[in-house]
């Protein structure tokens, strides 16, 4: 059972309405579309994780970072990779410490078992000591457990879930739907305050239906020119309006070309930063040619775009 927060309880919070989310995110430097804000709103009110999809560099991870900043909660990040399992994601016993303690306590063991006449009474005494070595002090929390045990809630970012194995996905289901995990030796650990969970995916592989069903789904598309200009203006404060308009128009027209990897928002922002550092106030062919490697990451793409630079710039200038 999830903890239900009533609207009145969180009315003061930045997540009270879609508009306040848009404003709040803008204050921490994230220009959100209405759909993104709605997703956040629903995540809070329905107590569900958000699965964020979209191509690399559209701001999936950034969204989680900014949501944490907005809510003033700690961000706990877990990067997924092939072979990630629960001992790295959830908890691990501190084996070294356990062994060390058994060594140190060896003599004490002897003492306390002294006087036990039979094997059985010795066993009884041992049982009486309880599961000493499988208790909280020997538990090494990993990101998921940390997120559940943080007082006052947290933002949990499970990054690139598509890179993990399918078995791991299944393992996440309990956490995502009930915000609790079961550690066999201790029992079920339940979140005091359910964390706000973001999962990101690049579509390396398709995720299972079970996981998708437990999540709200947010697909972040590449932004239109107006939104992208606002993003660049927020992220790169020094950028001139004209340069901003031109470079965004340029990138937007690049996206229309058949490229191996079209530039996404992060590339646009990087490019804007580079151009500001070069004190540019408008695009020029030489400038673009020299800095093309900031937005295009494949040699073939650069070769394909170079002959078209003049044409693209003049088109961008008109925009």
């Amino acid at each position, binding site marked *: 059972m999830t903890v239900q927060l009533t609207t009145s309880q969180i009315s003061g919070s930045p997540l009270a309405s879609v508009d306040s989310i848009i404003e709040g995110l803008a204050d921490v430097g994230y220009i959100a579309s209405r759909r993104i804000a709605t997703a956040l709103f629903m995540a809070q009110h329905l107590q569900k994780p958000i699965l964020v999809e979209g191509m690399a560099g559209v701001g999936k991870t950034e969204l989680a970072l900014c949501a944490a900043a907005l809510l003033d909660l700690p961000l706990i990040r877990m990067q997924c990779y092939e072979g990630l399992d*629960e001992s790295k994601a959830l908890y691990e016993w501190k084996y070294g410490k356990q062994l060390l303690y058994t060594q140190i306590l060896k003599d004490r063991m002897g003492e306390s078992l002294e006087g036990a006449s039979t094997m059985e009474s010795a066993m009884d005494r041992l049982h009486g000591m309880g599961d000493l070595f499988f208790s909280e002090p020997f538990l090494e929390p990993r990101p998921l457990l940390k997120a559940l045990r943080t007082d006052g809630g947290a933002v949990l970012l499970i990054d690139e879930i598509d890179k993990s194995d399918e078995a791991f996905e299944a393992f996440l289901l309990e956490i995502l739907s009930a915000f609790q995990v079961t550690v066999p030796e201790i029992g079920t650990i339940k979140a005091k305050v359910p964390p706000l969970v973001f999962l990101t995916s690049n579509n390396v592989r398709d995720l299972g239906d079970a996981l998708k*069903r437990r999540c709200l*789904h947010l*697909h972040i598309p590449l932004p239109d020119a107006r939104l992208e200009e606002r993003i660049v203006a927020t992220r790169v404060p020094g950028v001139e309006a004209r340069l901003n308009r031109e470079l965004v128009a340029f990138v937007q027209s690049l996206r229309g070309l058949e490229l191996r990897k079209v530039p996404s928002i992060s590339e646009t922002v990087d490019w804007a930063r580079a151009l500001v550092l070069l004190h540019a106030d408008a695009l020029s062919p030489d400038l673009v040619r020299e800095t093309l490697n900031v937005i295009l990451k494949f040699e073939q793409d650069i070769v394909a775009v170079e002959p078209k630079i003049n044409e693209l710039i003049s088109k961008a200038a008109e925009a």
Partner: protein
Amino acid sequence: MDGALDVPMQRTVEEFLKALRASEIKVSPAEAIDAHKALIEVGYADRELLKDALCIALAKSEAEVDRFDECFDAFFTRDEFRDAPPPSEAQSQPGGQGGETDLPLAEMLLQNDAVALARAMEVAANRARASDVRLNTQRFLLSRRMLDEMGLRELEELIARMRESGLPRDAGLAERLAERREALFEQANQFVDRQMKLYASETGRRMREKLLAEQKLTAIEPEEFKSMEALVKRMAKRLATKYSRKRHRADRGKLDVRKTIRKSMGHGGVPFEIVWKTTTIEKPKIVVICDVSRSVAAAAQFLLLFLYSLNEVVEKLEAFAFSDRMVHVGDLLDAEELNSAIALILKRIGFRPTDYGRALNDFWENHREDVDRHTTVIILGDGRSNYVNPRLDLMKEIAHRSRAVIWLNPEPETYWGQGDSRMDDYRRFCHVAKVCNTLNQLERIIEDVLRTYSPR
């Protein structure tokens, strides 16, 4: 949160979910509950907000988001009752019109009450089960049933009575009613069309696909290739999700005593480093040998497509094609789109008289090392060798060396061994020899192959 949704709204949402399911967006009961919860949160005053909220709760992939947007727009446009002629004429009629007939439908028509008509049509559609419409042929019947629900029969009678009465006023009314009735027909038809679009587009497609999956691979028309391709990819995807498992599973809790003790030597016998047992799961290694003579080429194409779509599960796939000489086509398939690759292969080696003996010889000479005891060899061909030496000895060697040999033959079993077919001889060396002529058979066979590799 202010309680539950009111009933009519809930109905609307249910209908909408039905429409979503028809546009191939999976909506489970749990998601339906989410949708309702979302509605309670956001209300339905702000349409954009409603759309965003439902989309986030229900659409689970990029493609589904697109379909959702489309479906949402299509679904909620039907609230507007368009094409209603301007009401001025009706209102300019002398007063007391309300009592002229005692038929609600006639009243609505005479007063041109678009809102009431729309509502009546929705109600009638619900009673006539418009959202169950599936087939084009049901269209006429459905609009008829809807109109009946709205009281068309009574209206007809009324018009007839008025015409017969002989009073000029009644005749005029009858004419007006008849005119409006035509407009009503038109509107009902449009309504049904929209319903078809919302609920039935999917069913037709599914039916076509079902047929395709059972159709003979060799008889598939070029214009069906596209839907066929999509179908193959989906089947492969289904198998891939079923069988792609982690190769190394850490068995927590099973101590590898031997290794742990070995490692403890360095710490004076204190086992600081614990080693756990792991099991390794094999991934299939597959060698495909395809006959690309005309009779088999189509089947070969889909087999290759199928296998290449399985790349998540199949660790290593080597593909060979032959008609008289055997060539390695794996690189070609990697580099090119499958369709153009197949065309290229056919251009290079296809359509020549088949020579199984020579092809097997080529394979044995050049690619023997691709086959080892982990490999499953899948041969696709009709086994018709033009009366040349079939080189059964090589077939035996291959069978001996590999984990399993599977022969897929597009010909029905009764033809095996007839004429120049050496299938009966070849099948002796195969672990499995099966007729494979439809996509469904193909899927079943590949699934068998994969299942033998996965742990039980």
